[in-house]
């Protein structure tokens, strides 16, 4: 897939940069990269823009990543967009919850570019 328009949701701007860089290092040809600092901001971005991939933190102020993924199911132009959670919250219940709400993968911080590649490429259905 060419030009993967991507939404990165994390309350840390530094982490958003790192995630974007890791995606590029994974060989993914990124199109427009949108950023949001929490779930509410992410929903606002999705109301205006179409994306192919969402990477989302869990522990964020205002609206956390689990609530965001839950609400995403009701967003017509985004409900089928693959979501990969990237978070320090590696507990089993968070994983189960995120997957039950529709997330397609889960990466635990700290992470390497290889781990991003391993989890993101399959959900995009492309070869690196």
């Amino acid at each position, binding site marked *: 897939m060419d030009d993967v328009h991507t939404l990165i949701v994390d309350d*840390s701007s*530094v982490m958003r940069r*790192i995630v974007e860089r890791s995606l590029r290092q994974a060989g993914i040809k990124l199109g427009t990269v949108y950023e949001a600092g929490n779930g509410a901001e992410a929903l606002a971005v999705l109301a205006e823009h179409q994306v192919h991939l969402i990477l989302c933190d869990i522990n964020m102020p205002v609206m956390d990543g689990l609530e965001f993924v839950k609400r995403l199911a009701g967003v017509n132009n985004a409900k089928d967009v693959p979501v990969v959670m990237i978070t*320090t919250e590696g507990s089993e219940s968070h994983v189960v919850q995120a997957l039950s709400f529709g997330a397609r993968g889960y990466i635990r*911080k*700290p992470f390497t570019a290889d781990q991003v590649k391993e989890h993101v490429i399959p959900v995009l259905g492309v070869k690196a």
Partner: protein
Amino acid sequence: MKGRNDRVDLHSTHQNWISLLEVSACEVFELMMGCQLAPYDPAIQETLNVTSMVGLAGKLCGVLSVCCSRESAAIMASKMLEVDLEKVGDQLADALGEVANMVVGNFKNKISGLGDSCMLSVPSVIIGDDYNVHSLADSETIELRLLFEGHPLIITLAIQG
């Protein structure tokens, strides 16, 4: 020192937790910045004027803090962002907050039975030349002193109850 996939029990002695905390910190610095943390050298003196804190609540209550100099935090941000040191601005606080977040999250994930029953706060960062951090934690404090790129780095876990 324990490895990335080693885990200890929640009720193990806090002595075990020190090495676990060190492994957690070393993994974060190695994976996110490509740096090895070195043993502390008391001869190196520096004003530690940036502190990042993340609270824990649940089966384990307390505060993890990461304390270093402004220059050290800027180097961390520079390495995490892969930008020149002089281009780092306000991002140093964000970077140190994320470091504390990853260290405590990594530590938490290494303790069996803690994952589902211990919540983390979002990080808070204090920058200044004259402040003291007082924790209401009433029990043991685990303190790690290390060197990051030749700069002192103090990681403290204050445990309540």
